[in-house]
């Protein structure tokens, strides 16, 4: 999906726990996430802690979307 959306010229950031490069889905901008069942959350944290965590992950995603890249780039 990532590649096809990017083909429209829209920057896309893939937030994924599995960022296998060899089996790559072809994402150019990647933000590694927490865990498969909760990529942008962490139930073991307090509500505030989890909110902060998610915020930091979204910040990375936005940073990725505003950064010029020339190939696969991992933002972590």
């Amino acid at each position: 999906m990532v590649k096809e959306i990017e083909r429209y010229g829209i920057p896309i950031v893939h937030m994924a726990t599995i960022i296998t490069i060899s089996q790559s889905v072809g994402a150019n901008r990647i933000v590694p996430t927490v865990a498969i069942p909760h990529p942008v959350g962490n139930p073991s944290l307090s509500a505030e802690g989890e909110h902060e965590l998610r915020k930091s992950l979204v910040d990375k995603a936005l940073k990725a979307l505003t950064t010029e890249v020339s190939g696969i780039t991992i933002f972590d």
Partner: protein
Amino acid sequence: MFFIEGTFEDVLIKIRDYVHQGVELVSHPLGASIRILFSPYRSVILGEKNNKINAYHIEIIESSIISYRNINAGRKIDYKNAHDYALIDVELLKVSLKSFKEINNNHINLFGGDSFETGA
């Protein structure tokens, strides 16, 4: 030491979960021959948990799972020789641990204990 009651594949999946949380992969999850992939036992060494996720480690564990599934499609795990596989597993683990210690002088802590094993 984590003992996983399950198969080689269950071990790989558990490792994947940990590696995705930032636990280092110290030894390679696969053996050096296809025969070893039929083993009911597998030990893999994991290192410290870091805040940073290691993309290369994730790549290795993910492609190991894919390889494992490819090779074992339609195949039964070789329980008949379970005892011998256990022996080889522990022998290979010893060498890996020795090599790990020589390289790192123990400055990296092993995660939680030292390794994963299956039992089925």
